[in-house]
C-alpha cells in the first residue's frame, strides 16, 4: 500500500522536474511542451501581445479601453480616437475570448482607469475555450494571479501545464529573453492597435458564388456558432466588473462580409443572446453587421478582418454612433473635417 502512496506523492515532484527540463529544451524558440500541444504561439510573436502588455503597464488612465480578439486589435485604431481628444488603449489579443478578456480586465483595469470599456464580440470567439489566447498571454505577459485564475477557468490539462511552466520560469528566473518580432505588412501603433497594410491589395467579390470568393475568402462551409455557456458567463462578469469600477461598457460587433455572415446558420440567435445581456446591464450593443457601413467587396483584408480603408470607415461610423448617443463629445475640428 505504501508503494502506491509513494508513487502518487512522487508525481508532483517528478512533474516539476520535467517541466523545468522541458522548459530548457527549446526548438525554434518554443519549449518542448509547446511543441507537443499544437500551440502556435511564440514569445514576441504574432499579434504583438508582448509589446502591448509591456506598454499598458505605464500607459496611464484612458477614456476608452478596447477588449477582444484580432477583431479588436486590428480594428480599433487609437489614432482615430485621439483626433477626438480621446486617449484609448487597445487590449485586444489573438483569439481573446470573453473569459480571457475578463482576467485581463481584472488585472489592468486599475492601471488604466477607463471611463468606457468597449468589448468586441466576434462570433468566432464565443464558441472557443480560450486556450489559444491563454497560450498567447501566458507566453507574452508576466506570471500573475490572473493568469493562474484563467488557467483554472479554462480547466484544461494544457492550460495547467502552461501555467506551471510559467510559474517555474517565474520562480527560477530562467526565461529566454523575449524581443518583439517584426512581421512584414503589420505595424504596432502605440496604444495597442496593429495596422495591417496589404502588400498586395485584394479585391473582395460581393457575390459569394463568385469563384474567387469561394477560394480566397469564404469559410469552408455553413457553420453554427455554439454559444458556450462559459463564455457567456464571462460576458456577464465583464459587465459586472466594469460597473463595479464605475466605468461604462459598450458591446460592439465589428462587421464581417455579408457572405461570411450568411454562412453562420444561427446568427440571429447569437445576436438575440447578446442583446438580452446588454439589456440586462443596460449597456448599448452595437452590431455593425446591421449598420451597412462597409462594402463586402472593398473593405476587407480576408474573410473577416478589415483592411485599412475598412478600419477607417468602421471607426468613423462607431465614433458617429458614440457621438449620437452622447457617449463622446464631437470634436470641432473633426466635425469640420467630416463636413
Amino acid at each position: 500500500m505504501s508503494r502506491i502512496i509513494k508513487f502518487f506523492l512522487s508525481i508532483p515532484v517528478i512533474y516539476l522536474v520535467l517541466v523545468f527540463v522541458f522548459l530548457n529544451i527549446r526548438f525554434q524558440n518554443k519549449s518542448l511542451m509547446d511543441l507537443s500541444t499544437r500551440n502556435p504561439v511564440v514569445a514576441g510573436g504574432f499579434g504583438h501581445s508582448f509589446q502591448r502588455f509591456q506598454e499598458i503597464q505605464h500607459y496611464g488612465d484612458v477614456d476608452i479601453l478596447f477588449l477582444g480578439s484580432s477583431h479588436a486589435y486590428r480594428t480599433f485604431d487609437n489614432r482615430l480616437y485621439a483626433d477626438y481628444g480621446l486617449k484609448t488603449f487597445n487590449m485586444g489579443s489573438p483569439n481573446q475570448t470573453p473569459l480571457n478578456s475578463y482576467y485581463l480586465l481584472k488585472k489592468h483595469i486599475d492601471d488604466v482607469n477607463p471611463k468606457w470599456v468597449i468589448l468586441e464580440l466576434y462570433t468566432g470567439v464565443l464558441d472557443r475555450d480560450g486556450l489559444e489566447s491563454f497560450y498567447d498571454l501566458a507566453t507574452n505577459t508576466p506570471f500573475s494571479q490572473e493568469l493562474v485564475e484563467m488557467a483554472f477557468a479554462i480547466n484544461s490539462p494544457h492550460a495547467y501545464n502552461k501555467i506551471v511552466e510559467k510559474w517555474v520560469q517565474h520562480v527560477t528566473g530562467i526565461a529566454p529573453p523575449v524581443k518583439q518580432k517584426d512581421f512584414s505588412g503589420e505595424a504596432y501603433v502605440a496604444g495597442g492597435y496593429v495596422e495591417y497594410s496589404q502588400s498586395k491589395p485584394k479585391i473582395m467579390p460581393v457575390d459569394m458564388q463568385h469563384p474567387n470568393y469561394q477560394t480566397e475568402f469564404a469559410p469552408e462551409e455553413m457553420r453554427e456558432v455554439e454559444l458556450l455557456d462559459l463564455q457567456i458567463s464571462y460576458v456577464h462578469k465583464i459587465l459586472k466588473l466594469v460597473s463595479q469600477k464605475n466605468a461604462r461598457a459598450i458591446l460592439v460587433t465589428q462587421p464581417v462580409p455579408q457572405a461570411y455572415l450568411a454562412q453562420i446558420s444561427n446568427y440571429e440567435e447569437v445576436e438575440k443572446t447578446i442583446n438580452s445581456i446588454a439589456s440586462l446591464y443596460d449597456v448599448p450593443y452595437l452590431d455593425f453587421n446591421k449598420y451597412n457601413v462597409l462594402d463586402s467587396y472593398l473593405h476587407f483584408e480576408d474573410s473577416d478582418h478589415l483592411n485599412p480603408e475598412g478600419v477607417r470607415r468602421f471607426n468613423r461610423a462607431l465614433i458617429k454612433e458614440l457621438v449620437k448617443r452622447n457617449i463622446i463629445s464631437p470634436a470641432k475640428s473633426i466635425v469640420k473635417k467630416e463636413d
Partner: protein
Amino acid sequence: MLFNSFEFAVFFPTVIILFFIMPHRFRWAFLLAASYYFYMCWKAEYLVLIIISTLIDYFAGIQMGKVAEQRKRKKYLYLSLLANLGILFSFKYANFFSTSLRAGLEQLNIFYETPLFDWLLPVGISFYTFQSLSYSIDVYRGEKTPEYHLGRFALYVAFFPQLVAGPIERSVRLLPQFEKPVTFQYERVVSGLRLMLWGFFKKLVIADRLAIYVNEAFNYPGEHSGLTLLVATYFFAFQIYCDFSGYSDIAIGTARVMGYDLMLNFRQPYFSKSISEFWKRWHISLSTWFKDYLYIPLGGNRVAKWRWYYNLMAVFLVSGLWHGANWTFVLWGGLHGAYLFISIITADIRKRIRAFFRIDRVPALKRTISVIITFHFVLLAWVFFRANSIGDAFFILQQMTMLDLSWAGFLDINIENLGWGEFIIACLSILFLVVVDWFETKIKPESLQTYKRAGSLKLVFDYVILFSIIFFGVFEHTEFIYFQF
C-alpha cells in the same frame, strides 16, 4: 460521460471509494445507479431504451426458465430478439434502409419519398443490445439459468465500464461475479489502475493525435496528395486500434479495480499472421459473439463447402453492418469475408509457394512476412471503414497508386494541421506502442488476464506512460470511435 473527461476523473474515484465502504448487499444498487448516471450524462431520455431492453429480457429469461418445452421457450426468445433487434433497427438502421431504398427506387425511375427519422443514435446501442440478447439466447439454450434478481440483471446490461463500447460480456461470466462479495485487494487495484493508464495513453497520446491528421485527410481527400492519404491510412490503422483497445483497457481496468474481471478484447491484432488470426485478436468479444450466436447456428464449417463460404461471408457482412449504418462498413465486412474465402481456397497454393522459396525453413522470416502481408490487407480494408463514402474510398485508393516517392513528394506530405513537432511525437508513440505490443506477444494469453505485468522496469514504464499523457496528451474530449456503433 467520457472516460477522458474531468467528470470521469471525479466520478471514478468517488464510485470506487463508496463502493468499497458499502456493504456487499447494497453494492448492486449503487453500481446500477452509478451506471445509469454514467449513461444519463450523455442523454438522459435514452436510458429508457436500456430499461426496456432490460425488462423484456429479464421477463423472457424468467419465462423461459419456467417451461421445459423448446417450442414454448422459443416464443420468449423471439420476443427478446424482436425487442432488441427492433430497438437497434429503429434507432440505428431505419434511416439507412430508408435512404438505400429511396436510392434503389430512383435507379428504377420511381421517385418515392421514403420516411426519415430525426433522432440521435443512442450511444453504445449495439453493445448493450448484443449483451442483453446473448443472455436470452444462453437461457434459451439452457447454458444459463435465468437471473431472478432484477437489479443484478439490470446491472449486467448497464455495467458502466463496458456499457457504451464493450467488451460485450456474457451473462455466464459477469452475472455470477456480481453475486460474490469482493474485497479491496491492493495487487488487483494497482493492476486495474495500470491498465487504465495504458488505455489512456493509447487514447490521449496516440489515437486523438492521429485523429487530427486522419480526419483532415479523409474528410477532404481531394485536397491531399497520394502520399498524405497513404500516411493517413497507416495512421488510421493505429488510431482505431488505440482508440478502441484503449477504451477496452480502461473499461477492463475500471472493472478490475472494483474486483470484476471483464473479458480480454484485444490481443496485439497487428501481429496476426493471417486474417483468421486477426479476428481472434481484434474485438474478441464481438468476434466470439458472432461465432457463438450466428456462425455456429448457421452451420459453421461443418457443412458443404459452398455453405461454409456463405456462412463466412454472411457473418462478416452482418459484422460490417453492426459497425455502422453505411455501405462503407458493409463493404469493409465483405472485404474481410472475401479475404477469409480467398485464404481458404489458396491455402494449398500458398503452401507450395512457401515450399518453393523455402520460407518455412526460417520461421522468423515466415512470421514476419505473414504479419506484414496480413497487416496490409487489414490496412486496405480500413480505407473503406474510415472513408465517408464508397466513392471517397475508391478515390483514396486511386490516389495512393499514384505516389510521388521523390524528396519533393515527401515534403508534400501535408502536416499543416498537425505540425512537425506533433507529427514526430505521433510517429514515436506508434513505434513505442508497437514495441510494447511486440513484448506482449511474448507473454502467454492467459497471463495477460493476471494482475502482474511482466518486466522489472514496470515502475519506470508507469512513469513514462503517466507523464507522456500529462505532457503529450491531446485533451479535446474526443469521443471514442466505437461509441457510434
